[in-house]
């Protein structure tokens, strides 16, 4: 690990921190246009973060230290996730640590802490949200792992960097298994990021909310960190999806010119992905919470089918 590599890694993290709220803002803007509302400004999430960071924190009486530390842990997990998903280069210092199973574990750690913190104060909304989050999580995680195993079978490695290198530098071939895995990954990322078929990120009014119910008791900088972490999670999932299924154009070095050259392509891919996300969110209605197991079961099924199709059709030469 040399100093240049370290700087490149720090640059990638800083870019993630900067781009994540922008991605959220872009998705919100697209959604507003599609629903013929007046769109909020693209920088709205930044204004929001700025406002929240300047406000005082109000803590509930029964809040333990867990409640205060959880936002920092969740934020840290998401920054780490963004650091190990290859966005600009596959050869950064953190790349050897970028094992996909560890990545799923990092997401799991953040989920556990946010659910525990939601239950900590003891309000009914908090524990309701925490329980629902765990329900969604324990169904989504196996599906995500299956998706990752399908791509890992193709590249013979569970390291994200190796997967991306193998997929980006192969000759063109149609992988039916990757199509299955891609659809399953889309299902899972909607559930994991509290998006419309499973949860509505724009409401605080309904009894159906999941993510918003968990962070209802937070205020000030804690809330800002959690909102930022949610943006980072969306960013990390988008980048993981791009890395696994559209890996073209991610360079293999850690020199700054290569990194800078990769930025416009990344932004372009994220913009396309964000608008697709908004379209899917607009044409779908939110499901009842008890349909979520069926939805995620379908995702798991698709991922398993991808794995099986890979074994049947693509292993023999």
């Amino acid at each position, binding site marked *: 690990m040399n100093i240049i590599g370290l700087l490149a890694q720090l640059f990638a993290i800083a870019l993630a921190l900067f781009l994540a709220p922008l991605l959220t803002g872009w998705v919100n803007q697209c959604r507003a246009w599609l629903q013929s509302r007046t769109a909020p400004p693209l920088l709205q999430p930044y204004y929001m973060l700025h406002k929240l960071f300047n406000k005082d924190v109000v803590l509930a009486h029964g809040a333990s230290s867990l409640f205060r530390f959880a936002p920092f842990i969740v934020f840290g997990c998401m920054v780490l996730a963004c650091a190990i998903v290859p966005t600009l280069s596959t050869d950064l210092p953190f790349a050897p640590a970028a094992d996909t199973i560890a990545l799923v574990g990092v997401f799991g750690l953040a989920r556990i802490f946010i659910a525990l913190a939601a239950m900590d104060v003891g309000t009914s909304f908090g524990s309701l949200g925490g329980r629902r989050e765990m329900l969604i999580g324990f169904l989504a995680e196996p599906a995500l792992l299956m998706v990752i195993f399908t791509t890992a079978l193709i590249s013979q490695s569970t390291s994200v960097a190796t997967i991306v290198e193998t997929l980006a530098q*192969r*000759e063109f*071939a*149609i992988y*039916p*298994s990757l*199509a*299955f895995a891609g659809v399953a990954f889309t299902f899972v990322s909607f559930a994991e990021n509290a998006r419309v078929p499973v949860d509505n990120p724009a409401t605080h009014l309904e009894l159906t909310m999941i993510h918003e119910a968990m962070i209802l008791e937070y205020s000030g900088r804690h809330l800002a960190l959690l909102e930022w972490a949610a943006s980072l999670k969306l960013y990390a999932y988008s980048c993981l999806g791009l890395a696994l299924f559209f890996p073209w154009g991610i360079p293999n070095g850690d020199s700054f010119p290569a990194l800078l050259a990769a930025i416009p392509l990344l932004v372009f891919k994220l913009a396309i992905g964000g608008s697709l996300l908004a379209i899917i969110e607009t044409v779908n209605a939110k499901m009842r919470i008890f349909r979520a*197991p*069926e939805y995620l*079961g*379908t995702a798991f*099924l*698709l991922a*398993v*089918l991808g794995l*099986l*199709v890979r*074994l*049947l*059709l*693509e292993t*023999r*030469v």
Partner: protein
Amino acid sequence: MSAVPFSAQIINLFASVILLLAFAMLGQRRVMPLINLFAYQGLVLAMSTAVVAFTTHQHHLYWSAGLTLLLKALLLPWILHRLVRRLNVKWDVESLIAIPTTMLVGVGLVIVAFNVALPISQLSNTITRGTLGIALATVMLAFLMMITRTKAIPQVVGFLAMENGLFLAATSATYGMPMVVELGIALDVLVGAIILGVFFFQIREQFDSLDIRNMEKLKDS
């Protein structure tokens, strides 16, 4: 992977879509979307057969593809649509709740089918031999659908989907059956669908519903 020619990749992709549609049919509760899914399956099957015909220069397969398109993607769905409208069961919803369980059983069946088909497909030397497992899985999934459904129309759709699977198996193992056999089967399926359509009216006349569980009450006296 580089050794697999491009046309085989296309055929594999089509076969995967057929498998996916079979699962979608297994999980579909409503009647109309079910028939539409069946039509899509017929369409994909016809396209896959046409690609096989183009790659292997087997001209009779073009006829098979055209027949499939005409019969399974257009005529049979049209007949079924008409039946559903005439029987007024457009909003019929399957009362079964255990669809996730059915899907899990389906995945098990796919694993069995793939394992069974693997040694058989190694005996064959066609370009499409890899899809034999998928064809077998489609047959078994359609069979599972016939077993788990209680309404008459989904059962008939399951029966027709099973024929789709058999057709795919024939194409993938030996580049299709002789033309006479294929014509015979096509006619069989068509006549079968029409006779079953008549049966629907009889069943409804008798029980005021298309739920075939009622037929268990029939006694031979």
